[in-house]
């Protein structure tokens, strides 16, 4: 299955992976091999098989609705490169405003 440069750019953008132009051709070749493999899988007849969303045949255990976590803000904020007034400071991203 052929992959266009545009598609490759879109995929790398969605995954937030910075792919350099010079590695496009080699990367495309590798991805195309993976896609070919999936196309092969697609040929298998699965009409009699139920869709599976997890390989373990168990039901998800649950927990009671109780607050068990304490405030560990100071400790957790230590991991952040930038902090102000108890907030994580990040580059400005506004989705929504025109």
């Amino acid at each position: 299955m052929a992959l266009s440069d545009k598609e490759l750019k879109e995929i790398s953008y969605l995954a937030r992976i910075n792919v350099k132009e010079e590695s496009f051709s080699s990367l495309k070749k590798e991805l195309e091999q993976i896609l070919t493999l999936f196309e092969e899988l697609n040929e298998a007849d699965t009409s009699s098989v139920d869709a599976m969303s997890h390989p373990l045949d168990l039901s998800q255990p649950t927990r009671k609705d109780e607050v068990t976590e304490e405030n560990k803000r100071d400790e957790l904020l230590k991991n952040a490169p930038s902090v102000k007034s108890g907030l994580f400071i990040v580059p400005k991203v506004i989705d929504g405003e025109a």
Partner: protein
Amino acid sequence: MNENLNNWEAVIGLEIHVQLSTKSKLFSGASTNFGALPNTQACNIDLAMPGVLPVLNEEVLKMAIKLGTALNADINSPTSFARKNYFYPDSPKGYQISQMDKPIVEGGYLDIETESGTKRIGVTRAHLEEDAGKSLHDDFEGQSGIDLNRAGTPLLEIVSEPEISTPAEAVAYLKSIHSIIRYLAISDGNMAEGSMRCDANVSVRKKGDLELGTRTETKNVNSFRFVEKAIQYEIERQVHEIESGNTITQETRLYDSQNNTTRPMRSKEYANDYRYFPEPDLLPITLEKDFIESVINDMPEMPNEKKERFVSKFSLSNYDADLLAADKDIANYFEEVVKISDSPKLSTNWIMGELSALLNNENLNIKDSKVSSDKLGQLILRIEDATISGKIAKDIFEKMWISGKEVDEIIQDEGLEQVTDDKQIEAMIDEVIKSNPEQLEQYRSGKDRLFGFFVGQVMQASKGKANPKQVNDILKSKLEK
């Protein structure tokens, strides 16, 4: 915009996000309390620290089952979670855990009251998902501050079929959902605080057309009134565009309540592609029959059931029953009042009239009413047993509101008991007739309208305490002599 909107019809679907009122988060034991200091309620799991795993809160399953049952929907078992992938600073994992193929609630409906009768709106699905944190954009020198307290708070997203036709129907549907979630106590439903949020999908087509028009999604609508206005605006905008020869772009728009307009959100360079896949950190959930049944058995009477009971048990009109049953607290108050007053219709009138007016005046919830249901019941009882007239009852009610006193106490202290003794009333009437010979003359020569004058005089003489019906009867016989 002066297009003839009558030639067009709108197709509307609503997506309602309901914040579930659990103590802890969907997948962690951090608190969900509103208004805490930033990031004091965000734990390792909410922050997506390496190596952590989500653990499902059992309560959200119960809440979703209750909602699904109230919406006449199927409960899927197994139900499973999926990953919705996108990058945004207020979502630390780089994905949201949501549901895709097997939402917990699927295929229900809701009956709403419209101008032209009852209408059934299909509910496609309701699925569980995590809320995001909050980004604050002011005061950070061109950067953003992130508060993750809300990250991981459980949401139920309720998706309607595109079967809503007017802004008024959209509001009726939204109010009905609001009423249900409040009855079930699964959310406080506070739209101003964001515990209930609504996105509207709107398209228009020429009346009679079968093909759907291109739809837009309007976000950011945070009150019932704004939902109505935003949809109305969007319908008119789309009709105007099409009639001007333009086409509608499929896009997400934001409602601006200050200017009552919608405007497009900045479109991204690439279209969103969430690349959903089954959540590998969570197993599918099998909901045992016994579990589902025990949850359903635990459900309270729902608004529509209550309404029907009010109509059959108390002979209320559909309209009155609907008004009372829409709010659980009002319905409870009403039933307590009726228990004492034994007069459903008069109780309804007092709750919807005098009581509502005073509550609205002081912006109070009926639970915080200064006149308790007991006391209002007593007041209505005193009207029913003719101790006081309806007019004096209104004065007494205001005094009860201010002083907190019982009705009997005020009646006794102020001597407000209704005069029902024929002899006493006769005496007052005789006095009034005697002191108004001119009016008597005119009345007897055919000026019937003066009857009201005499009633007024008698009521004044009795300080409003004479029983109006007796006054009428006795006065009539005396004047006709």
